[in-house]
């Protein structure tokens, strides 16, 4: 799988669609859809995420790669596929601000990795608390771009606590990258530096919740 992952990562970085498709087909001949998602696509996207953090890959490549991977996986592992069952309820949201790219990338990476995840779009704190409660969400991924939106996670946590809702919150977005302590300040459980981090975080939490 390592060679496949390496080749896929290179093809994704250069957005070579025919080669990406050929590598995906080759992987599907050897492994199950979930094995391809977890063993080939996730590591390739993780490597791209690390390269973005290091400044050698750009956001446009991350976005296009995650979108292509999402499309491929959804062909063989549709949203309601049985392999996706048994996951704790999880959702992703853009809190307060109007910048959707970060959420779009994380959503694509999560779906490409075989996760079922509710897409809440953009919500304010009050609306989000109600939805989380009614959907019985256990894991919430919060994406923001603007600092005021990042600071609203504090109000979100307070509102959830006031209702006695037990939920784990992972945050991500530019303000958290520029201030590495901000996630603690606002009461999140963890921050993700890249979209691929979200996969590792949710996997870890799923094991802890099992």
């Amino acid at each position, binding site marked *: 799988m390592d060679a496949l992952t390496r080749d896929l990562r290179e093809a994704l970085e250069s*957005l070579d669609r025919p080669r990406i498709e050929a590598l995906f087909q080759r992987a599907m001949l050897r492994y199950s859809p979930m094995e391809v998602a977890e063993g080939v696509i996730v590591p390739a996207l993780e490597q791209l995420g690390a390269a973005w953090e290091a400044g050698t890959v750009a*956001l446009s490549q991350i976005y296009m790669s995650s979108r292509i991977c999402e499309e491929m996986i959804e062909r063989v592992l549709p949203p309601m596929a049985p392999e996706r069952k048994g996951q704790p309820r999880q959702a992703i949201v853009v809190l307060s601000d*109007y910048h959707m790219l970060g959420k779009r990338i994380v959503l694509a990476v999560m779906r490409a990795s075989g996760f079922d995840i509710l897409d809440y779009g953009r919500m304010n704190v009050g609306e989000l608390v109600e939805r989380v409660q009614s959907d019985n969400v256990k894991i919430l991924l919060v994406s923001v771009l603007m600092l005021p939106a990042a600071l609203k996670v504090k109000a979100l946590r307070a509102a959830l606590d006031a209702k006695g809702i037990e939920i784990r919150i992972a945050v991500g977005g530019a303000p958290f990258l520029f201030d590495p302590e901000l996630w603690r300040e606002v009461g999140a459980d963890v921050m993700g530096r890249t979209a691929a981090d979200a996969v590792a975080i949710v996997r870890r939490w799923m094991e802890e919740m099992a």
Partner: protein
Amino acid sequence: MMTSMQRVMTAMAHQEPDRVPLFLLTTMHGAKELGLSIRDYFSRAEFVAEGQMRLLEKYRSDCLYPFYYASLENEAFGGETIFIDDGPPNSGGPVIGRSEDIDRLAPPRVADLACLQRGLETIRILKERVGDSVPIMGSVISPFSLPILQMGFDRYIELIYEQPERFARLMAVNQSFCADWANAQLAAGATAIGYADPMSSTTNIPRALYLKTGHRVAMETLRLIKGPAAIHLASGRGLGIAEDIVATGTPAVGVSTLEDLTEWKSAVGDRLTLLGNLNGVTMRHWTGAEAEHEVKQAIAKAGRGGGFILADNHGEIPWQVPDEVLLAIREAVDLWGRYPLDWVE
């Protein structure tokens, strides 16, 4: 003692002025000074001009910064602005709902738009008040970055990769508007223009693609702007395209806090003035000692020989940054920014 204008011009000529110039790029803080909401503050040219003058007196920054908010230019294309109480206004829904809309898009006329005329009036008032003693920094969003607001970041990336002809048409429309808007600001009294171009940052697109897109757009647009225009990548990384930025002919560049000023200085020498790179997000909770440390470090890295203006890394200081921190930055520049910088090893 030099005036702010003399100080900035000397630094930009890559000589050492009396002290390191400081651009405290406060936009919303003027609303606090006037006791107004951010929405009300930006509703009248006189408010923003008065706010800028009060901030100038309070912090003795070396420029006036009559920038309203990024969504203003999206408003010019018919977009909506959504105000919040504690931060910069956001752009509402995209004005380019479908990529086909680009085929019918036309550049709005600066003279017809009240939102832009407010900005021009602010510049005119400031120019009357300070004459040539303080630089007035105008601002435009680059033609290459404006589509992030016009159509959403994700759909814009797809457009760049998948629809080159429509992308070219959108650039032509935006370029025409951008040059008119910049030149109107210069005519109103702006000393220079900040060309905000985060999309060109290597954080957002790879260099090879930048050379075919944002770089070409910048080369052409900067030629149409009848005054100095400093490229600002708005927190994005730029070292990987430093040589390309020099090639645009810009006199200055905004440096990200994610990058090292020493590396930038070494890469561009006296070909670009560096603007930056204090971290505006962590600035919210700096102590006086931390502010002094950050200022001292930036000056030590980039101050020698001029060609450096101390500023935040984004081009806008967050609303949440308290006055005490801004005053501490001011004091630290007074203390450590005096030329010659004998204390720097």
